[in-house]
Structure formats: C-alpha cells, structure tokens
C-alpha cells in the first residue's frame, strides 16, 4: 500500500509538469496583436480634446465644456492583401473619453500577414439591439442604453455651454433601425501603407477623431441643446461624427 502511494506520487510529479507544458503556447508566431489608436482632437487646428475644459467650436463659436463624451465602435475587421477578411469575434468597444485606455483598442490573435484596409461600425449593429441582455461593453450598466425604446446610444455627449438657454447640453445620438438609424459602417483603406502583422511586435492603426465634427451642422447650442431620440438631426450629427473619424497612419 505504501509503495503504491509512493508510485502514485512519483506519477503525479511526472504528470504535473506535462499539464503545465501543454498549456503553453507554441513558439512559432502565427498570430499578432494590432492596436487601433484613437487620437481625439477638437477641430482641425491640432487642439486635443479634453473633458472639463472650455473648448470653442471652430464653426458655430459655442463654448462647450464636456463632462461626458462616449461612443461605441464595433465589428472591426481587417482585409487581407488576398481579399479575404479577418473578423474580430465579439467586437464591441465603448470609447469613453474619461478613460484614456479605452482609446486604444486591441485586436488580438490577428493572423500573420499583410492587410490593406480596416472596416468598422460606429454604433452597435442592429442584431445586438434586438437580442436581449448583453455583457461587457454592451452591459446596460455602461449607461449607453435606451430602456424606454430599446437600443444602444451611439454617442453620448453632455456638458455645459454659456450659449445654451439652460446652461447645459445633452446629446444622446442613436437608433438602429428605420429612416433615422445612426449606425454606420465604414471602411478605411491603408493606401500605400500596408499593415504587416508579424507576431513579433505590435502594429498600430492610428485614427484621428475630430470630436467637434458632431456639431458642424447642428447649429449652436443656443438653438438645440438636447437630443434624446432618433431624428433627422440626430442622424445628421451621427453622420458628421462619422466624417470626423479618419484613418491617419500605420505605425510599426
């Protein structure tokens, strides 16, 4: 009996490291990580976006002081040089400008190779708007969910402005169906800068996001200081935000 236990112990000692080894990754890299870096500016003059700071709108002249600026980006995919796509699974991200880490989106396990373009959706696709309780970036605890008329808010921007009749502004832009759907998919070509995923080092895709664009056609806060549901105006603002979301460069 004693011997048996001893043998078992020896067996366990041999088996245990085998378990450990089997959990380790293989050495030859077949996948790499790509970071999507979102650089948030205000206007075209190189001003950085900042919360709790007076920012003067380059077009309508409003002074806007943001307490909150959040938006969804989803369904990222990369097009390979051979025309096929790598599609990120569970690709939903809440970019919250109060949390700088959320401005860097990690695309993990991207197969090694060359890529020519990236596609993404600003907002949350309609499928996830009709499929019940979600998790992660799509959790209702993120306060980006319309409970009274089911759907995710695409952009939530709140703050104060002396131009506003009540001193504050609150723009909740969203809607996933019908004529005012704010959800828009977009593709950015890398042009001559191909993205090479080698697996040895992280590659970065940089976007410039002009956060002031959202108000480039909406007029002053003096006229409209609140959007709370889908409308022609909210669609215009979503489109303008989208136009301010521009591929910059590949950084290796």
């Amino acid at each position, binding site marked *: 009996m004693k011997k048996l236990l001893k043998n078992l112990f020896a067996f366990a000692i041999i088996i245990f490291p085998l378990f450990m080894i089997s959990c380790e990754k293989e050495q030859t890299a077949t996948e790499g990580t790509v970071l999507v870096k979102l650089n948030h500016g205000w206007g075209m003059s190189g001003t950085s976006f900042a919360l709790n700071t007076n920012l003067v709108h380059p077009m309508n002249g409003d002074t806007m002081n943001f307490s909150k600026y959040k938006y969804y980006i989803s369904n990222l995919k990369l097009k390979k040089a051979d025309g096929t796509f790598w599609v990120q699974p569970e690709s939903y991200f809440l970019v919250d400008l109060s949390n700088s880490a959320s401005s860097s989106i990690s695309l993990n396990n991207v197969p090694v190779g060359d890529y020519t373009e990236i596609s993404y959706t600003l907002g949350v696709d309609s499928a996830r*708007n009709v499929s019940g*309780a979600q998790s992660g970036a799509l959790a209702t605890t993120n306060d980006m969910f319309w409970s009274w008329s089911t759907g995710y808010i695409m952009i939530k921007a709140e703050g104060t402005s002396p131009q506003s009749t009540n001193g504050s502004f609150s723009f909740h832009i969203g809607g996933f169906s019908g004529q005012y759907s704010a959800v828009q998919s977009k593709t950015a070509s890398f042009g001559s800068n191909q993205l090479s995923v080698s697996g040895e080092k992280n590659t970065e895709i940089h976007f410039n996001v002009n956060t002031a664009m959202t108000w480039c056609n909406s007029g002053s806060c003096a006229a409209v200081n609140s959007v709370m549901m889908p409308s022609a105006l909210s669609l215009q603002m979503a489109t303008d935000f989208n136009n301010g979301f521009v591929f910059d460069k590949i950084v290796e």
Partner: protein
Amino acid sequence: MLQGPFFIPMKRFSLLIILLAVLSCRKENTADNSLSPAYPDYFPAPVYQFNNNTVNKDRFELGKKLFFDPVLSLDSTISCAKCHAQVHAFADHNVSLSAGINGLLGTRNSPSITNMIWSPTFMWDGGVNHIEVFSVAPITNHVEMGESMLSVIRKLNNITAYRTAFKKAYNIDEITDQAMLRALTAYMSMIISAGSKYDEYRQGKTSLSASELDGLNLFRQKCAGCHSEPLFTDYSYKNNGLDSVFNDLGRETITTNSNDRGKFKVPSLRNVELTYPYMHDGRFWSLREVLDHYSNGIVISPSLDASLQHSIPMTIQEKERIIEFLKTLTDWNLVSDQMFNK
C-alpha cells in the same frame, strides 16, 4: 521538506492530484432541476426562445427573489411585485396611474405581465423589444423605481445572499446586469396563464353555460378582431377612441410617426376580471364602463382605428353576456399558485 500550516503530506497530496484529475474529467452535475413553460397545444410557439437562459429552479427562485425585492429601486421602497401583484394577475391594482418612488406618478397603469414569452414587444407603447431588457425600463424610469443599473448591480454585489444565489444559478462570482436581467426573465417567463375556464372548455374538460357561450359568440363578432384567441390580443397598436387631445402620445413616442398618435398596445384580456382599472391610464374601473366606451363613448381623432369609426353597437344584454364570457378568462390557479409567491 516543506513545513508549516500549508504543507500537505505527500500521500494526501498525490491522492489530491488524482482526485482533481478525476473531478476535472467529470461532467457538471446535471441534477434535473430544469423548468420549462407549459402551455396548451392551441397556443402559438413562444417568441422568447430561452437562448443562453434555459430556466431551472435556481434561476427561477433567484428571479423571484429579485422580483419581490425593493432593493431594485432608488430608495428601496418599490419592488416589481408592488405594481405587478399576483392576486391581480400581475397587474397593478387599486390605482389608475401606478406610483413610483416618492409617490411619483407616470401616465400609465401597470399592465399584467402574464404570458410575456409570447409578446413580440413590451410596454403600452411597445418601446421594449426583448423580454430580457424589459426590466431595465421600470428600474431606471424616474417616476418608477428611479435607479441606475450600475447602482443596482453594486448594491446586489454587496449582499452575500445574492452573490451566493448568482453563483449557484449562473456560476458567476461577480453579479452582472446580464445575469440579473436573465434571472428576472427566468421568473417572468414562467408566469403563464393558460388555466382558465375558457382553457378547460377549449380542452373539452368543461362546458360553458348557455350565457357564457352566447358571450363567446358575441365576443368573436365584436371584440376578437383585435383581442384574438387564444392569447386575446393581436399585439397591434390601436387608438381606441379615448381622447382627441393626447397627454400621452403612446406609440408615437417610439416611432415619431403622427399616424401612431394615441395608439397603445392591445392588451390581452386573459384575467381581465382581475386587472382593473382598464386602459393605458386606468380610467375605467369596470368592464361595463369599458364596453360602454366602445358602444357609446368613442372619441373621433385622425388616428382612430378604422374598426371603431362607427363604434361597436351592443345592447345592454349583449354587454352582460360578453362580460360573463370574459370572466371565464380568469385563471384562478395562476393567481393562487404558491410557486410564484415569496
């Protein structure tokens, strides 16, 4: 050799390894505590498919605990059960407009939440598209429970009993809104009303009286256009002629289409005897008042339903018969079923 309080003697260690290895190969304990909705064969297939949320006893009991717990409201004064009372077939009772925290009043009367798994949309205006996210609306509405989802989840995570119950039901260490919403769904999805006298009649287990049968035939002629059997609603939105000036735009709030002005979802008439007061704003307290409205009280407005342009002519005797029939839709088993009680 290692010594001290964490040292495990060799023999026991090797046994432990073997035991762990054996356990890891075992399937999860599948003690059958699953629950599934039971309904007659003349019911349609449910809309809710229980994807990722098969109901079992743990989930049902957890959902029930949440349903009765005022912790879901801002000041811990209001639970779901307050406005959805089992004795009234899970509708509000005694008030026209349901009161929220601090006695705040909205513009609507809480409807019954029976047979939710057949409903394609939720709320009087159909603004909610899925049973799992339905509960977010009353929890976060400022004139209902007035709470934020983040705060609710924080509060629940601070209660040991809930952490244990969520671990058991959903195998999670940290309570999430998704699990909370699914637990509430697990409870609500089982609240099925299919045990009325009408159902027993449909199944050949009992017969209706002559006047009840009269009422059924009259109902089929005059009411079933919208309140279609067997769920007694077609889930459409109608302006049923209550007003010409609307303080609650109803469906238009959701669609922004003025053709939807003053339209509200056709409610199921199952248990209608118990779900008074009636209409989205609880303005009528008796079934007789409701039928009088349809025969003599229709108010004309641009979005009025076509079927009500000339009212619904009914004699006093016909109304009495229809009401007799409507009372056969009361599910006394459901309203007394201990399974749904705290």
